[in-house]
């Protein structure tokens, strides 16, 4: 909580928390209420301009754009959260043995991480889609694995460093159990680096989901999502360029919130810039 207050003290931190509240609020409200049915198509109201009934107008099938944007927040937020959870689990599953295990274990994990990191996220998603078909779960699994590996790589290095620190040695000399040292000393020390990496990965996940949905490998067409909306506008951009704005704006705002939150968090927790790492998270 104290960290959150420090994050909120910067303008960019405030902006990020505001966008999160807005998107999360929209996602929750959309479960019980929407201005219009987001999937109700009607030939009698194609390409309506924004107005009182259709706040942002309608698309080429006569569906209400505002309702689709509000409902679409569920997919983007769901992918971000799902990827975040899976990437954290995989990250720690790699980093704990890779950073704290005995020598052969550490080296095996290090080599596996190096090979896996070189494997591009989109290619992994394409492979899994080729085998299992497209869908949001496949998107979450491929993004979670890919970002989990890069989180694992950073955490592993961090754990290796902390494990050799004097205060850990002191704790061991004082007779604390291995588990207690891990929970009370090691994990709290790597937590700042972990949360910063996590927020960056979640922002990148929203971007990657948009790309995958565009390729037809993401959310199915029946579910309103920002990525699919973006893809659907392309055929008509020369006639109705304004409809391109909304889904793209929504994605950019949410991703920007994740990135700025990560930056503010890094300053609040005093973590070094991930741009210093050679392992950038690439979409």
């Amino acid at each position, binding site marked *: 909580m104290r960290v959150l207050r420090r994050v909120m003290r910067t303008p960019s931190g405030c902006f990020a928390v505001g966008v999160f509240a807005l998107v999360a609020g929209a996602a929750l409200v959309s479960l019980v209420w929407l201005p219009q049915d987001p999937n109700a198509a009607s030939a009698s109201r194609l390409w309506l301009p924004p107005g009182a009934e259709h706040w942002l107008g309608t698309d080429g099938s006569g569906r209400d754009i505002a309702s689709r944007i509000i409902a679409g927040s569920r997919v983007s937020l769901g992918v971000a959260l799902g990827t975040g959870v899976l990437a954290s689990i995989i990250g720690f599953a790699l980093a704990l043995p890779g950073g704290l295990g005995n020598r052969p274990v550490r080296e095996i994990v290090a080599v596996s991480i*190096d*090979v896996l990191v*070189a*494997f*591009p*996220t*989109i*290619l992994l998603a*394409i*492979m*899994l*889609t*080729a*085998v*299992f078909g497209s869908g949001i779960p496949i998107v979450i699994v491929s993004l979670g694995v890919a970002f989990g590996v890069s989180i694992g790589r950073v955490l592993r290095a961090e754990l290796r460093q902390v494990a050799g620190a004097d205060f850990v040695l002191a704790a061991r000399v004082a007779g604390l159990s291995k588990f207690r040292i891990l929970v009370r000393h090691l994990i709290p020390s790597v937590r700042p680096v972990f949360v910063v990496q996590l927020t960056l990965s979640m*922002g990148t996940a929203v*971007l990657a989901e*948009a*790309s995958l949905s*565009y*390729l*037809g*490998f993401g959310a199915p067409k029946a579910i309103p999502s920002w*990525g699919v909306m*973006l*893809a659907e*506008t*392309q055929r008509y*951009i*020369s006639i109705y*360029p304004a409809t*391109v704005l909304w*889904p*793209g704006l929504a*994605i*950019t705002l949410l*991703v*920007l919130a*994740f*990135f*700025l939150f990560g*930056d503010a968090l890094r300053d609040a927790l005093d973590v070094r*810039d991930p*741009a*210093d790492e*050679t392992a*950038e998270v*690439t*979409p």
Partner: protein
Amino acid sequence: MTRFILGRVGLLAVAWLLASVLIFATLRILPGDVALVIGGSKASPERTAQLREALGLNQPILTQYFEWIGGVLRFDLGESVLTGASISAELIEKAEVTVPLTLLSLAIVLLVALPLGVFAAYKRRSAVGQIVQASSVLVSAIPVVWAGLLGIIVLSTWLQWLPSQGFPRDGWSEPWLAFRALILPALTIGLIEGAILFRFVRSATLRALEADHVRTAMSQGNSRLRALLAHGLPGVGLSVVSVLGLQAAALLVGAVVIEQLFSLPGLGRMLVTDVGNRDLTKVQSTILVMTGIILALGALVDVVHRLIDPRMKGSSEE
């Protein structure tokens, strides 16, 4: 030095083989019957059996793997199950679009990121420096598809400067037309990836400004700018080289989305189409080739980095 290169090449071979096992395992072992996936569940049992025979699926899994990887090592990637066309020939044809696209994007990435990154670090406390820094965060949050669509609206529909879609049918026989078709795609991905490299260049330059030898140069009466340009930049260049492989890889993979967006007949678009057609053996070979290129770029960058790093000069004959 020779020993370093040999070692790096050995590591490359091991990583590439591991990746091939990973790709093969994902596409073959997990999903039950590949013949059913390729033929579709509606295919007749005869057709499925025929496919299974043609794909060699009746053989033990290890034999299948070694036949595939053996073929790849002889530059024989097999044929597409659907069209019967040679995969290697098609890859080379598609590379004529993807490779120039990637190189052009890389040029844009460097043109954007290097000068702006150094500038933003040098002018860190000024308003302009802050604005450049803030824009880089904004640009890196823009979805590639959206950036491309906005580019099409502004540069193709409104200003009519550049074509919005497609690539000349006769390829590079008219170089200017082909090049024109690649400008907007390369700009789109180059600017976004450039924003990521920008962050890296900026923080490398900030570190250079704090470095002892740059401070020494300043204390000898050089201006801050001169000290940075003459003594700081070589170090910055060195760290940029170390991430260049990663950048090129990101651009190559980014081409998958970009080529779809601009209807360019390149490797990425082919991959997307093949996934739609469930041409699994072709997907498998294409992804292996792309992974190989990415790993090789990484190795190449490591070697170049080692060659140009003056700190490594004395240690050449260990």
